[in-house]
């Protein structure tokens, strides 16, 4: 990992309010960059991890599939920059725009609250079934 990226992650990572962001960025690092096999095959590093015994027919067949390659250091740095942009610039703009739009549509509320759902998802199936039975009088 390059020094700039390591410093950036060490500054942002172990934080109460933004630590989750870096966890997600690290998950993206682990998943790699999605690309098709045809594109990946142009990279000699990819050839070295492909099974050697593939016939040319099998190779052609594989070309329609997707694969991943590791992020480069500069791509990792760019991903962190984009994540910070999204959270500190795009998200507040989206929050403001959402609230303004709801007001334009007639909402009088001055704020939005988020509450946990009434029941855990796994209990909802049984409750839904019960409700459906009540509706049809079973």
């Amino acid at each position: 990992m390059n020094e700039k990226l390591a410093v950036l992650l060490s500054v942002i990572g172990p934080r109460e309010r933004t630590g989750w962001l870096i966890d997600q960025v690290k998950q993206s690092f682990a998943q790699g960059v999605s690309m098709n096999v045809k594109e990946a095959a142009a990279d000699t590093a990819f050839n070295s991890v492909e099974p050697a015994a593939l016939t040319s027919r099998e190779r052609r067949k594989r070309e329609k599939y997707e694969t991943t390659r590791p992020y480069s250091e500069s791509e990792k740095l760019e991903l962190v920059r984009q994540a910070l942009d999204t959270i500190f610039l795009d998200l507040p703009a989206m929050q403001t725009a959402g609230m303004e739009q709801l007001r334009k549509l007639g909402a009088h509320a001055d704020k939005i609250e988020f509450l946990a759902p009434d029941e855990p998802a796994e209990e909802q199936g049984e409750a839904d079934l019960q409700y459906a039975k009540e509706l049809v009088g079973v």
Partner: protein
Amino acid sequence: MTTLADLQEAYTALLESHAPVMSAGQANDAFEVYTLALVLRAAREEEAAIGFESSSGIVNPSPLRFRTSPGRIFSTAADYTHATIDFLIAYNSKRISVSM
């Protein structure tokens, strides 16, 4: 020369303390409100009447209360808010209201 401690201090003061959300779930909630607003705006552009109502029947409640994840629309466990979308359409020479 700027030290790592300077950078950490600046990050804390200028960014971290102003983070708009504290989890991925909260970021998703904000996105969902934005998406809801887009859906309602699209319905309004198709001449629907838009309203807001709570599960206990309060019209245009304040604040708007949404779930952090899917739940049952008929639940009265909390006074959740939902939007109403009403289209007036012509059917057999009558105008009828279709609510969503």
